[in-house]
C-alpha cells in the first residue's frame, strides 16, 4: 500500500557488506573488559588504596629494588640473546630448505606449549651441579643454577618464539626481486642483508624483541625452579609479589605488580614508537 511512499520517502541507509558488526564488537569488548581491563583496573585501585608515600616505601625497599634490578638485568640478557638467535632462526627457517625443516619449525612452538614449570624443572636438572651441562660448567667456574644466568636462561627459553614468529612471516613475504635488484647493482651478500633485508624486517624484529622482553619481565614458572630465589641475589619481582601475597600483604603485592605493569606499558609505548619510526616510509601506501 505505501510501497511507493517508502520508496521515495525513506532515507538512504548504506548497508554494510559484512553483517554483525554490533554483535561482534560488543562481544569482543565485553570479553576484553572481563579478562583484561577489570583485572588491570583492580590492580591499579588496590595499589592506589595505600597512597603514594606507602607505595613508594614498598617499591623502594632494598629487597624490592634488588628484585627489580635482577628481573630487568636478566630480561635484558635474555632479550639480547633472543634478538640475535631468534633472527637467525627465522632466517634459517625461511631461507633454506633442509631435511627436518618442518620439524624444527614445529619445535619452535614448544616453549609456548610446554608448561613453564616443566621447562624450569628440566632446565634445572640439566644445569644443576650434577646435570649434563652443569657438571661441565660448574667445575669451569660458571655456575648457572641459582645465579642471574639461570634466570636469564629460563626467560630466554620461554620468550624466543616471540622473536622468531614475528620476523618469520615478514621475511617470507619479502619480494625476492628486491634482493635480485641489489645483486644486479653490485651489492655483496652482507650489504644486501644490512641495507635491503634488515631494514625491511626491522619493525617486526623490534616488535618481537619487545614482546619477548615484556614476557621475560613477567615470567615466573620457569624461573622459580632454577633461580634459587635468594632475596637480594636471585629473587625476581614476580616472585616477590607472590611472596607478599602469601603473607596476606595484598597492598605490597599490588604495588610491586603495578611497577611491573608500568614497565610493560612503557615498553609497549617505546616499541610502538620505534615501529612507527622504522616503517615511516610506508605512510603513503595505506
Amino acid at each position, binding site marked *: 500500500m505505501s510501497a511507493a511512499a517508502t520508496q521515495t520517502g525513506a532515507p538512504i541507509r548504506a548497508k554494510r557488506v559484512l553483517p554483525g558488526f554490533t554483535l561482534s564488537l560488543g562481544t569482543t569488548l565485553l570479553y576484553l573488559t572481563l579478562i583484561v581491563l577489570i583485572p588491570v583496573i583492580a590492580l591499579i585501585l588496590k595499589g592506589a588504596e595505600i597512597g603514594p608515600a606507602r607505595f613508594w616505601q614498598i617499591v623502594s625497599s632494598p629487597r624490592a629494588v634488588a628484585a627489580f634490578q635482577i628481573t630487568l638485568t636478566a630480561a635484558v640478557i635474555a632479550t639480547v640473546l633472543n634478538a640475535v638467535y631468534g633472527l637467525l632462526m627465522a632466517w634459517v627457517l625461511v631461507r633454506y630448505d633442509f631435511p627436518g625443516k618442518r620439524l624444527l619449525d614445529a619445535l619452535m612452538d614448544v616453549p609456548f606449549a610446554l608448561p613453564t614449570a616443566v621447562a624450569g624443572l628440566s632446565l634445572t636438572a640439566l644445569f644443576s651441579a650434577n646435570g649434563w651441562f652443569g657438571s661441565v660448567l660448574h667445575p669451569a667456574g660458571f655456575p648457572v643454577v641459582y645465579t642471574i644466568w639461570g634466570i636469564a636462561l629460563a626467560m630466554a627459553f620461554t620468550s624466543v618464539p616471540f622473536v622468531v614468529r614475528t620476523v618469520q612471516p615478514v621475511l617470507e613475504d619479502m619480494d625476492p626481486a*628486491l634482493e635480485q635488484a641489489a*645483486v*644486479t*647493482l653490485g651489492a655483496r651478500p652482507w650489504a644486501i642483508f644490512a*641495507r635491503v633485508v634488515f631494514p625491511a624486517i626491522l619493525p617486526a624484529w623490534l616488535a618481537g624483541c619487545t614482546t619477548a622482553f615484556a614476557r621475560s619481565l613477567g615470567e615466573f614458572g620457569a624461573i622459580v625452579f632454577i633461580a634459587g630465589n635468594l632475596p637480594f641475589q636471585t629473587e625476581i619481582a614476580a616472585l616477590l609479589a607472590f611472596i607478599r601475597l602469601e603473607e596476606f600483604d595484598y597492598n605490597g603485592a599490588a604495588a610491586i605488580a603495578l611497577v611491573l605493569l608500568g614497565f610493560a606499558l612503557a615498553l609497549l609505548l617505546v616499541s610502538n614508537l620505534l615501529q612507527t619510526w622504522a616503517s615511516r616510509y610506508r*605512510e603513503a601506501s595505506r
Partner: protein
Amino acid sequence: MSIGISGLTKRFGRTDVLRGIDLGIKKGELVALLGPSGSGKTTLLKIIAGLEWPDAGRLEVDGVDWLQLAAQERRIGFVFQHYALFPHMTVRDNLAFGLTVRPRAERPGKAVIAAKVDELLHFLQIAHLADRYPAQLSGGQRQRVALGRALAIEPKVLLLDEPFGALDAAIRRDLRRWLRGVHDSTGSTTIFVTHDQEEAFELADRVVVMGEGRIEQIGHADAIHDHPATPFVARFMGATVELPVTLQAGRIEAPGLDLSALPRRPLPDGPADLFVRPADILPVPDDASPWRIDSRMSNGANLRLVLSHASGALAEADVPRRAVQADALVAGTAARLRVAAGTVFPATRGAPPAQKTEPKSLKLESVR
C-alpha cells in the same frame, strides 16, 4: 657491448624452459624479446643478468664468458617488472644505491655520487621527487626511478623485464617514446621483454619472437607481420583464424572461401592451413556457402562476426561497422569468406581441422 648467445638450454624440474637459444646482439642495439607467458623470454633475460643459470650453452659479451661471472661483476642494469624499488629509501638513495654499495676502494666520493644522482634526477625529469619514498610515487614515476637506479652504475647492458606491463595505456605510450630517447642518448645495448606486440615493434630495432623455449623468428615489424615464419608466429601476430585449405599447383582453394586475392605459393600440393587475421576476412552473402553467420557484436568501430562451417569449424571476421556491406551481415546469413591476406603452412600431421580452430584462438585470447 655485443652479446653472443649460443645453444642455451634451461630446465626447471621436468619443464624445458629454453630449448637451445642462439642469438647475436650488436652494440647499441635495442632488441625486444616478444612472446606469450611461458615462452622462456624472462628466463633468457635473467640468464643474461646472472640471476638464473643455464644448464648448457654459451653467453659471451665482448668476448668475455659471462657464465664465469657473478651477477655483481657483470655490470648490468636490470629493471624489474614491478620495479623492486627499495621501499625504505628515498628516490635519491635508491638512485645512489649502486654507487654507495661498491667496495670502499672503488666507491666514488660522496660529492661525486650526489652530483651523479642530481644529473640522473634531471635527466629522468623527476628532480621534484628526490626526497619521496617509493610508496609516494605513481607507477610511471616508479618506472623512471627504477630505470634511473639501473642507469646509475653506467651498465654495459640494460635489461628490462616487461617494463611497461603494470602501467596505463596512455602512460605506456609516453614512457615508450621516452625510453627510446634514453637508449639513444646513453648508447647502451638494451634488451627488453614484452608480451605486447605494439610495444615491441614500436620500440625495438629488432624483435625476437619466442615460443615455448625457442626463437621462432627474428626480424623487423613489417617482415614478422606480413611473413610469419611459423604457425606459432602467425597466431601470435593475430592471425587467429585457421582455415583448412588445399594447395593445387601453388593455388590455395577451399569451398566457401574466396581466395582470389592471395598470390600463388611455391608449396607442394596437398592439405594446408591458412592463417588469417579477422580484419582480413570479409563475409559476402552467398546461399551456396557452407559458412553461416552465428553472431554479430559491435565494439563501436568494428563489427565482430562469428561464423561457423557446416563441419563445426569457427571463424571470426572484423568488418568496419560503417562499411556498405555491413547491413546485410546479420546472424543466420550464409556467406562466402573473402580473404584479403593470409599465410599458408603445410597441414600439421593431418589433425582434424574442425577442432583446431577454436581452442587455439581461445588460447591466444587468454595470452593477451
